[in-house]
């Protein structure tokens, strides 16, 4: 199969979906620039100049505008160059979009809006350009919250979003945009609520989201050399959550680590830990372990950033601890970011 970059996979899904459905339009600040949201919208902008257009800075109203357009049969896709700007849209997302179908008893139709939000990390992007509010949003019934971690998922989940009947938010990690992977040329939507077993194993389960999936893979490779077999589950969507995939894995391994790209408190790592404590308790052989951002706003300075983000070595050591072994300095397995500023 062909290898594509994550951003190319998003781009391809967008173009294919727009070819198939002329009610799709794409907007948000900078979507029609030559740089097209880090290369993910430029092809669509070139191909469909009338249906890919810039948007003023008006995140609050636009989320409601998207709802109103969707109610009339259009399929808006709105892109946030940074997920942090989405807080301004929370009212229309949480009080209108995600409740629309339910609150009108199914009688006001569907509002299939798609929101793509890019999650920043590193290079001093700082406290207001690096957040991933997937857990706060997933808390609310009526939304679908997806976190594609690989190019194939970026394509497949976006295709599902663009053909689904309800509001979908995708968190796309900026650090993944140049990651490569095999991607089907055909339009194959990936259903929501279906986890991906990234790697099979029998000693420890790591449930990881977004960028933490590749960190988990690095850790698992290192640990495989030491005879520890790690299973990695990527839930792909936070809501709906594929509980069965997680529970089945834990039933097999008896040990769980959850690695997330946001904070711990009331976050996704707690969700999975709680789920397993409720529904796979008798299979657990050891305490669950949550791995998340340090519990402070994202700092800018390099050594603080280093300390702030968990990485492959953090995960590998957590596995060692959980399997009763000594931890050690494993920073050699951590990727050195090649990302260069300014943005």
């Amino acid at each position, binding site marked *: 199969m062909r290898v594509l970059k994550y951003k190319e996979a998003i781009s391809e899904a967008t173009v294919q979906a727009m070819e198939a459905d002329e009610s799709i339009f794409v907007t948000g600040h900078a979507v029609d620039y030559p740089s097209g949201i880090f290369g993910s919208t430029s092809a669509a902008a070139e191909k469909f100049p009338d249906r890919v257009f810039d948007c003023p800075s008006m995140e*609050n109203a636009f989320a409601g505008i998207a709802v109103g357009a969707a109610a*009339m049969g259009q399929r808006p896709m709105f892109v946030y160059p940074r997920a942090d700007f989405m807080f301004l849209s929370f*009212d229309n997302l949480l009080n209108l979009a995600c409740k629309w179908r339910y609150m*009108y008893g199914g009688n*006001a139709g569907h509002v299939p809006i798609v929101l793509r939000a890019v999650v920043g990390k590193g290079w001093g992007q700082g406290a207001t350009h690096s957040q991933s509010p997937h857990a706060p949003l997933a808390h609310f019934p009526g939304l679908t919250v997806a976190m594609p971690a690989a190019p194939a998922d970026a394509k497949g989940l976006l295709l599902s979003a663009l053909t689904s009947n309800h509001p979908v938010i995708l968190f796309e990690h900026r650090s993944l945009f140049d990651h490569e992977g095999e991607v089907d040329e055909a339009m194959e939507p990936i259903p929501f609520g279906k986890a991906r077993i990234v790697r099979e194993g029998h000693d420890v389960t790591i449930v990881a989201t977004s960028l933490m999936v590749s960190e988990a893979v690095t850790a698992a490779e290192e640990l495989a050399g030491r005879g520890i077999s790690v299973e990695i589950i990527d839930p792909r969507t936070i809501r709906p959550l594929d509980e069965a995939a997680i529970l089945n894995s834990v039933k097999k391994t008896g040990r769980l680590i959850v690695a997330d790209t946001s904070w711990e408190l009331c976050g996704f790592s707690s969700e999975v830990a709680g789920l397993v404590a409720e529904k796979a308790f008798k299979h657990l052989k050891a305490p669950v372990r949550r791995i998340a951002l340090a519990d402070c706003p994202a700092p800018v300075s390099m050594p603080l950033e280093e300390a702030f983000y968990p990485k492959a070595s953090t995960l590998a050591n957590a596995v060692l601890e959980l399997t009763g072994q000594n931890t050690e300095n494993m920073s050699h397995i951590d990727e050195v970011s090649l990302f260069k500023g300014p943005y």
Partner: protein
Amino acid sequence: MPPKTQPIDPLASENHETLLRLHEELLRVRHAELALAERYKQQEMRTPTHFGVGQEAVAVGVCAALEKTDVAYSHHRSHNHFLAKGGSVYRLAAELFGRETGCSRGRGGSVHLTDLSCGFVASSAILGEAMSAATGSALAFRLGNEKRIATAFFGDAVAEEGAFYECLSYAALKKLPVLYVCENNGYATESPLSIRQPAGADISGRVASFGVRTIKAEGNDVLAVLTAAREAVAYLRTEGTPVFLECATYRWLEHVGPFYDHELGRTYRTEQEVAGWQDKCPVIKSRAAILEAGAADEATLDKMQTDIQAVIQADIEKAYGDPWPDPQQLFDNIY
């Protein structure tokens, strides 16, 4: 800009039918609200309700200028708009009783109404949302090359919310066929306009600064509202760019609930002030115009009213007898 629409001359006989049709609608909306408010006091409608008594002429006048295929959105005080756009008293009453036959199947309550069959898309309880959604529907019409108009009804307080200006700016920028209808009743709950918005800066003036066309109409005069709305609609259909229609009007009952403020001892406005506006009652005004024009006589109008009241009562009773939703269906329609 198309020429200003001529005021409707109530005396001209070709307008008599219009006068009567408008009056009938006014009566239907007025007496539905009065009957629902009366019934509300029995504590069987468990949903916070903002009655629109006194403000009917705006909803009726505007909706009379719209086509069925045009769509409307509204805010928390939405019964008038739901009914005037063609929604049924029966399904509204059923919604307030929380019945499965309610327009939103008892899920939404008074502030979340819908009836797509007549183009009333949705009302919503959060200030600003109706306006954003209507703007979005107008964007859909523009993108889909449809000749329809989207309308949003809302109150004066929305002009304090940022979403108001984001919508105006966007609709003007994108030239969207959206009709914004502001029912300026001078209050947000118990707060008069003067303590909420800058002195002397009127809402339409702010709107006009975006290059949006504004029209003011006497909100308690259904003919004046219809005239203004026709002008707005003609402009929207030819120019396709937004229009803002501001109508001064007045709410008779308390902000939320079925009582008069004085009945509950509230003093934020005087009984005289309310009485003064009751003298300018849109129904009385419409009736007087009809009588003066000789379009109908007193007896005909009285009968019109009693007939309408009877139908409304029957609708409400029917709704009351309808079944509750089945708790087994609690999870229906989440997606």
